[in-house]
């Protein structure tokens, strides 16, 4: 399957986040249109919210819905990582790879901290001044006053019509893996005992790793395995649960 966006298996899934509440599909649309900032979307909360919805309605959608969710959620992860990666600005003076001394790093962080605080101040100012709509009784200027440069109109046409609306995720290649396939692979790997996520996904690309993670979560949800991580950022261990083999079957 490809990331030709899913069917409508997620049509009923709604999310409640600080920055947005409503249908998940609309959330995706808003992100694609730049109306919502991808990096303000807490992806972990999004996944938790999906897992919660799944618990409340275990029969709804089943693996097809899981696959669709994993597909779109991993695209969001990739999009977010791209957004958070350093600016690749052709105009920049090529200082992306510079190594900063601790002092320089401190300077940069200090400057950013100030901007962060200024942004909070601005948020409050906007909120306190919202709802002032100006008069619509404006007089058109005298005919002949306004000059519009035709070349600027042509330039605007070129800009508007050549813009890529969807974020460029095509270079990531089609999503050729399904949640079921990776779930099957994980089950097979677990036959020989516990395995770390890092070992499991060592030979995978980023997309497969993301889907493998979703598959592991899904299996943990079904009780087929347990996930343990003893220390922050430490290895994530997938352990088969010591239950009879029937527990390994999907519950859907």
């Amino acid at each position, binding site marked *: 399957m490809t990331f030709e966006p899913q069917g409508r298996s997620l049509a009923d899934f709604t999310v409640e986040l600080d920055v947005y509440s409503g249908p998940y599909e609309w959330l995706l649309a808003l992100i694609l249109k730049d109306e919502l900032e991808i990096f303000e979307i807490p992806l972990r909360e999004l996944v938790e919210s999906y897992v919660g919805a799944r618990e409340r309605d275990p029969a709804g959608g089943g693996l097809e819905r899981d696959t669709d969710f994993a597909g779109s959620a991993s695209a969001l992860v990739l999009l977010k990582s791209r957004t958070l990666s350093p600016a690749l600005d052709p105009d920049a003076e090529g200082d992306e790879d510079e190594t900063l001394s601790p002092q320089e790093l401190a300077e940069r962080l200090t400057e950013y901290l100030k901007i962060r605080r200024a942004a909070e101040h601005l948020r409050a100012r906007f909120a306190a001044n919202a709802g002032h*709509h100006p008069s619509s009784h404006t007089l058109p200027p005298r005919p002949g006053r306004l000059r519009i440069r035709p070349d600027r109109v042509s330039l605007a046409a070129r800009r*508007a019509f050549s813009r890529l609306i969807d974020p460029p995720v095509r270079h990531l290649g089609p999503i050729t893996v399904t949640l079921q396939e990776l779930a099957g692979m994980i089950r097979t790997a677990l036959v020989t005992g516990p395995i770390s996520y890092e070992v499991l996904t060592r030979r995978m690309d980023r997309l497969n790793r993301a889907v493998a993670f979703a598959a592991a979560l899904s299996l943990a949800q079904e009780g087929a395995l347990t996930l343990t991580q003893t220390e922050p950022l430490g290895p994530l261990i997938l352990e088969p649960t010591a239950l009879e083999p029937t527990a390994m079957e999907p519950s859907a």
Partner: protein
Amino acid sequence: MSEGPRAEHMIEAVLLVSAAPVGTSDLSSATGLPKPELESALASLQERYSPETSGIVLRNVAGGYQLTTNPGCAAAVERFREESRPTPLSNAAHEVLACALYLGPLSRGAISRVRGVNSDAVVRNLLERGLLVEVGTDREAPGSPALLGVTDEFLAATGSSTSDDFPPLASLVSPEELSRVRDRLASASAPPEDAGEST
């Protein structure tokens, strides 16, 4: 509703943001005021905004109620208009005009889809400035949205006599880009493909 804004205030606010006269039923649905309350609030506003008491007067014209300048202040308004330089157009405004010029007439929704960003505010501004105009409605599309085109004033401002004076679209964008734009336009007017609405 007892804690809400006063009836007169809501009416004043609505009338400030409407250049055209507003009928009582529109005023009523915007403010949530029942007719009798609306009528009495309008009567008291007519005193507040009378030619004797204000530079802004409330008129009851054919289409409804409208705030206008007091004719007694026409000289000041005219001088202001004479001296004020028109605000230059933003890049966004140029893009919206280019959409209407090259792809129009088209609806607000279609403009937003072609540009990939909500363009309602820019469109409103261009309508107010007389550079865009509603030339019909798209009866095919849900909600029959208004179709927008550029005005003669726009052509005059660019020093062109017809829209053919502009370079052809094919000289500005590649065939692939053009077909992408056409796809976006088609998706703007077509009803949702998925007939099986979920709810």
